[in-house]
């Protein structure tokens, strides 16, 4: 084991990421797509030693697990429940409009069915991370359309929690019977784990809670890895195991765990994106450029529609509806995570680069669109019924047109 070389390589990679991340912060965009590009460049220009490669691989898996754990921590079980109740119609619409284009594009590009389903996941999932960053950066948490944006993100995350175990079972493959069995086992295990996470969450939170920060960090991190490992053994998908641990932890412990895990998550998540980039082959990028651009444009439009109708349900007017739609456009970490499953399984060589370019485009388009609601509104109003336009001129109070226009 050549320690010096491993340190030099890893240090260089992480420094490169730091540089990229700073650049992203400077221009005010999310660093995720840039990490991918950094990984792509690294894979093309340098060759990491096998040991460093090994570390990056394991680190990437830890990153995926921590991303979902942190996501689970964000939500309390009540939030998940109440959101399912009130916003189900918008959730269904979101799924129909944004999952379908990915699947269809997959088939059009001649992907195997499973890869097409993965691509559906890639186009479906709004990056809740980027969305909430846009909302807080632009000071829009108080806006009337904000709850629906967050609600859509929550519903998508619930959908992902069901989707990942299914995909994991399908990836294992085998005969139709074997797939059926592993699918059943996966869903049962997930259901049981989800129910017990909701039920025993408070008890677990009490057990885990210690005053010492380092003991808490070790308990939480250890527990997450153990549950993720168990989930992986059951073919439920390691990330979902971690997600459930996050859901189960609540209250003060969750808050402290979030603060402790955040730096770890950021480090390993960055390694995850680099690893994804490393696996890509630069020569395949030009071939997927056109489909990625078309797909990005189409699914930008479909997210805008979801945001539009979602905000309309809250009685929000044109500008707010556009803001809601634009905030939902960026796809990010979880799209990459899903594409990564296909890349690791070697399903379709184009899936990785396509997802990478696609995420890059949407992650850029979304936040830019979100800033220009004022300029976009007049363009849209031309197409609205004149009656609605009159309503826009009422300077005050709430618009009365609840529901769809």
């Amino acid at each position, binding site marked *: 084991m050549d320690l010096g070389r491993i340190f030099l390589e890893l240090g260089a990679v992480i420094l490169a990421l730091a540089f990229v991340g700073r650049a992203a912060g400077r221009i005010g965009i999310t660093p995720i797509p840039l990490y991918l590009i950094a990984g792509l460049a690294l894979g093309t220009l340098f060759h990491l030693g096998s040991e460093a490669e090994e570390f990056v691989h394991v680190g990437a898996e830890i990153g995926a697990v921590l991303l979902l754990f942190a996501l689970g921590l*964000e*939500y309390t079980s009540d*939030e998940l429940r*109440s*959101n399912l109740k009130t916003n189900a119609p918008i959730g269904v619409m979101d799924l129909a409009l944004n999952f379908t284009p990915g699947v269809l594009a997959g088939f059009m590009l001649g992907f195997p069915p499973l890869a097409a389903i993965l691509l559906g996941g890639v186009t479906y999932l709004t990056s*809740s991370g980027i969305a*909430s960053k846009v909302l807080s950066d632009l*000071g*829009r*948490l*108080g*806006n*009337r*359309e*904000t*709850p629906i944006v*967050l*609600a859509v*993100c*929550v519903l998508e995350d619930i959908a992902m929690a069901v989707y990942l175990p299914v995909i994991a079972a399908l990836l294992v493959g085998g005969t139709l019977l074997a797939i059926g069995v592993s699918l059943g086992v996966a869903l049962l295990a997930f259901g049981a784990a989800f129910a017990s996470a909701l039920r025993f969450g408070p008890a677990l939170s009490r057990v885990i809670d210690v005053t010492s920060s380092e003991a808490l960090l070790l308990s939480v991190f250890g527990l997450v890895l153990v549950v993720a490992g168990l989930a992986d053994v059951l073919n439920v998908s390691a990330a979902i195991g971690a997600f459930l641990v996050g859901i189960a932890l609540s209250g003060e412990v969750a*808050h402290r765990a979030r603060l402790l895990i955040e730096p770890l998550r950021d480090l390993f998540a960055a390694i995850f994106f680099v690893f994804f980039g490393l696996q890509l082959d630069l020569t395949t990028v030009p071939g997927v450029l056109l489909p990625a651009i078309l797909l990005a444009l189409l699914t930008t439009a479909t997210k805008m529609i979801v945001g539009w109708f979602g905000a309309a349900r809250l009685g*929000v*007017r044109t*500008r*707010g509806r556009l*803001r809601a739609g634009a905030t939902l456009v960026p796809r990010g970490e979880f799209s990459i995570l899903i594409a990564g499953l296909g890349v690791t399984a070697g399903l379709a060589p184009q899936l990785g680069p396509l997802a990478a370019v696609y995420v890059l485009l949407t992650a850029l388009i979304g936040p830019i669109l979100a800033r220009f609601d*004022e300029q976009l509104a007049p363009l849209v109003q031309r197409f609205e019924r004149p009656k609605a336009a009159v309503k826009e001129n009422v*300077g*005050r*109070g*709430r618009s009365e047109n609840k529901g769809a226009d």
Partner: protein
Amino acid sequence: MVLLEETKLPGVGVRHDFETKYGKRVGVITHRDGRREIYVTRADDPDACGQSITLSEEEAEVVADLLGGSTITRRLDSMTQHVEGLAMDWLAMPPSSPFAGLTLGDTDMRSRTGASIVAVMRGTQAFPAPDPQFLLQAGDTVVVVGTPEGVLAASRLLGGA
């Protein structure tokens, strides 16, 4: 009557807002980490935030006091954190209090609320462990100990509610 709307913001916190007499919406977002964000909507787009001010928890308490908020519940919260099930509060007796001019014994505080008066403060003077013949005056601050519910009941009783 102000109609306060409560909206949960998943992953962020809770938002309360209301429509003001002046046509704008004003609201407070309570973040999970205790930060408070006060915002007011824009004139040209009533759905959007125009301005917002972010306050730490302590700053928010100061602003609430300046705006004439009650300190009872907050004190209750901070006291009950130390001892589960035990609350303590400093209750100011308003001039309208039905007990101004009566003795401690007359309040029947313990039997009515389960909370006990352990001290009375008058100006800069403190009377620890006052006996039942102690005369209460308007403007006194009464220190009460009991269950959280009992202390709340005591504050209502003293306030004449």
